[in-house]
């Protein structure tokens, strides 16, 4: 009885702490919906009003649809390229036997130990030389290979029962056939996890797009929001509204697909790598 009671109070405390983690989102929401007079009130006002007109104004001030489309476009192309390159590499490193396979894998893993700062500036110079600065490609190509993805996929492939491969071989399937019809369908959940991480990474990326882009028409939504913040630093309601509608998509994606994100965390960190 006492134990049960203790567990109950623990649940309540945990729940309160959990809710404390979403307070900043709530504050943003309250601020965006406040009336002009209520925003500047102390102590702060904590109940929701429903004045959506600020949202309409904030939405109309910037070309948000274009920035969101940019973000999604960059994410989708990055996901396609990174998944393709990772699947092929992971397949070669787990199903094809050749000399030096272990060595190649280690060479790839070394990437995880090189801090991103090491290649930051030279990558900028390379893209400048290739005349790719200020394009979508500048935001895509550096993420064309995901070592995290290769690692995750290889681990998965190696854990597959050998029977699959033997059965496929007896049926006369070569590597390509096996990859396409057996390995790829089986690893769909892992592909989903990797893709999701790349998507969230793209949605949240700030430093690299800041470095390699200047024209608004190729910039992602996070950069646009940073500019919006600098231009409108006095109108808190408008800022908060913009924060809500640019952050909400990624929160929704997380809430519905968190299973895949937690899987990625439990297998080793890998945001945009």
């Amino acid at each position: 009885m006492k134990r049960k009671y203790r567990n109950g109070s623990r649940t309540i405390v945990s729940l309160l702490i959990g809710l404390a983690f979403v307070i900043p989102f709530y504050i943003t929401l309250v601020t965006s919906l406040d009336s002009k007079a209520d925003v500047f009130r102390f102590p702060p006002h904590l109940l929701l009003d429903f004045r959506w007109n600020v949202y309409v104004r904030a939405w109309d001030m910037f070309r948000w649809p274009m920035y969101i489309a940019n973000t999604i476009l960059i994410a989708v192309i990055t996901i396609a390229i990174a998944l393709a390159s990772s699947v092929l590499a992971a397949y070669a490193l787990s199903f094809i036997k050749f000399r030096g396979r272990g060595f190649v894998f280690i060479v790839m893993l070394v990437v995880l130990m090189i801090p991103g700062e090491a290649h930051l500036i030279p990558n900028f110079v390379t893209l400048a030389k290739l005349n790719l600065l200020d394009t979508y490609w500048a935001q895509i190509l550096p993420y064309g290979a995901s070592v995290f993805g290769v690692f995750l996929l290889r681990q998965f492939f190696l854990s597959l029962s050998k029977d699959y491969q033997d059965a496929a071989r007896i049926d006369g399937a070569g590597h390509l056939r096996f990859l396409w019809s057996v390995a790829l369908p089986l690893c769909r959940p892992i592909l989903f996890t990797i893709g999701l991480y790349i998507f969230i990474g793209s949605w949240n990326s700030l430093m690299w797009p800041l470095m390699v882009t200047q024209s608004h028409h190729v910039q992602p939504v996070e950069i646009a929001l940073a500019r919006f913040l600098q231009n409108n630093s006095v109108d808190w309601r408008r800022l908060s509204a913009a924060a809500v509608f640019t952050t909400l998509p990624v929160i929704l994606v997380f809430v519905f697909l968190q299973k895949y994100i937690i899987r990625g965390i439990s297998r080793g960190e890998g945001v945009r790598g």
Partner: protein
Amino acid sequence: MTIDSELAIGSGDPMPPDVARTGPSPTGSLETDQSRTESGGTGLPRTGAREADPGRTGPPRTGKRDTDLGRTVPPRTAAREADPGRAVRMEKRRKSLRDIGLAVVFLTPALVFLLAFVYVPSVMALVLAFFHYKLGGVGTTWAGISNFTDALQLNVFRKALVNTFYYAGMMVPGTIILSVGLALLINKATRMYAFIRTLVLIPYVTPAVGTAIGWLWIFNPTYGLANGLLHWLGLPTSQWLQSPRMAMPSIAIYSLWHGVGFDVVIVMSAISSLPQGVLEAASVDGANAWRRFWRVTLPLISPTIFFLVIVTTIGTLQSFSQIYALSGASGGPEYSTTTLLFLIYETAFTYNHISYASAMAVLLVILILAFTLIQRWMGKRLVFYQ
């Protein structure tokens, strides 16, 4: 050897039970993958590979013996035609050549990307640091180590170095204490477990600028919730991000909120994979909860904590987004929140001192590697492995 341990850190530590909790895992058991990876290097157990593909480790025994004998007795040509193993071997060799070709084709895309955007640039960064180089400028001249010495003599650089350490000094203990505490607490709250975990993890996936707006408002000295709370408790209020003294701690508060969900999930999966028997035994022996935590739980999860210490240190040494977002792209009042990476960004892209920034980046990379090595060295002495 370092790579093996890196592997163990990156993959093995965050434990599979959590995967089991979140749904059926298609990958099967992680432990087997791990042991395979460590034992073989190539991933497959040696014997398995040999059995599966005899052609690679040499022709089958019987075939070889045939040829050896055949060389002395019948004429060679006859032996060749008579040797049934030969056709099989040729076939095998052709297949293995084809396999190598396929492997090369499969590995090329990933390796080309890594070569172009990781391996070559990492070396180039080191080279750039020894030259005077300007983007769009004419020619490049040798600078020796002047970029490094200049950077080290620069006040802002020193300030950034101190700030970076200060920030890491708040973040690493903060992350560990908070994540272990929250994980222990939430773990026992069985009923709402998944829901609370979701709440704690939401900030982790959100963008820095988007969430910074809410926090800028919370930290607002006049109307913000932070001062509202202090005021209500009767404590002295603060200027938060606008005060040189409090700006960095404010960013650390934000960053803890933003990132700790990740660490909580990792600690929770470590806790849920603890051997229940040991804890029960301790309980039976009369150890109270506090003692059980210090003597049993903590040693058992120490590899995970060690992993978090390394990851958090590296992460905080590389922080940029939160600084940029919360300090309004300025690096704080009186450079109070200018970290190394922020300074590198500014030096390279605001002032176009590419090689100067490269020298700073090299120093930062050396710092990160040195920290990782020191921590690993300490970890060997402090961490308890089962």
